[in-house]
């Protein structure tokens, strides 16, 4: 199922509205400015086109060359079709490729389930927005809290 929208558009829109990205070309050279408190949403395909599928937000986004954004205090949320939060991913910073829809960082990452029962941490990550695939490069640590009546392992 193809994603219906390109999530970089809201980011670009935010930056444009803030007077950055003069020329708005796909390949901006050098730092062109910064924007605060931005967010970028992606929606489900029909039959749930009004339901948000994921939201990428940050305290600050700074464009750099090659269509990249340096995002501070990254927060990525994914939702199910009922609007409930499934996971929340946070990281101190990352580089977001607006053209490829890929976010990456060598820094720390924390993923927490929407119900707060479990979390995953690691160092270094790659997030592919199109496939909703998160790769954690090193030191993956998962903690699963489960009610006693449900087993979790072998």
């Amino acid at each position: 199922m193809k994603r219906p929208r390109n999530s970089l558009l809201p980011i670009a829109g935010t930056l444009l509205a803030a007077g950055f990205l003069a020329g708005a070309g796909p390949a901006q050279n050098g730092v062109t400015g910064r924007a605060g408190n931005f967010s970028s949403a992606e929606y489900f395909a029909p039959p749930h086109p009004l339901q948000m599928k994921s939201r990428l937000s940050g305290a600050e986004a700074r464009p750099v060359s090659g269509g990249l954004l340096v995002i501070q205090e990254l927060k990525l949320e994914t939702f199910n079709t009922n609007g409930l939060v499934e996971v929340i991913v946070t990281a101190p910073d990352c580089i977001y490729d607006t053209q490829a829809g890929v976010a990456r960082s060598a820094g720390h990452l924390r993923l927490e389930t929407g119900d707060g029962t479990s979390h995953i941490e690691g160092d270094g990550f790659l997030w592919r927005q199109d496939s909703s695939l998160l790769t954690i490069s090193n030191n993956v640590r998962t903690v699963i809290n489960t009610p006693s009546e449900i087993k979790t392992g072998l």
Partner: protein
Amino acid sequence: MKKIYLIAWLGFLGGGLPAQTNVPATPPTSRPPTRINSDHGEFDLSARRAIYYDHVRVEDPRMTLTCDRLTADLPQSEAQERHIVAETNVVIYAVDEKGQTNHATSDRAIYDYRVEAGVTNETVTLTGHAMMESAQGTLTGEPIFWDRTRNRLTATDQKMVFRQNISPAATHTNAAPAPGQPGTEKNSGSPP
């Protein structure tokens, strides 16, 4: 092929763990968390699948598992289903109700937990050089199928070696038993 059924076989692999049955559920209580550590990980948030790579270690309150790769389908929070596959150099240590540590190894271990129509099924299937060992003996088979709900082991082409306990008093020594001490071997594999 001949299969044998070993009901509650020596409490193997934590067989004494509170097995899931179709009795009325009790209210949830807190329990220590399950921890999964690995060098690398890949998480498909759409398919709700997690894959852990390299030096994978699962620590459960009564079980430790290590392997090279572990794939877990992540259910919805209310789902009554679990499917986990551990692959390559699978080693499991589990503590039974008597506090004894049991040991299993295989190339692959598949854990399935499912509740259907109020009936729970929880199984572990070991394949590829599958071996289960407890203080009482060693079981090999291909595969070894463990029904945790009914606390029953099934092995195809199974081979069992019961450990003989030779007490120091009987042998007039205080030496620890050698790791490969003689045992009673029983091969119940396929008949000719």
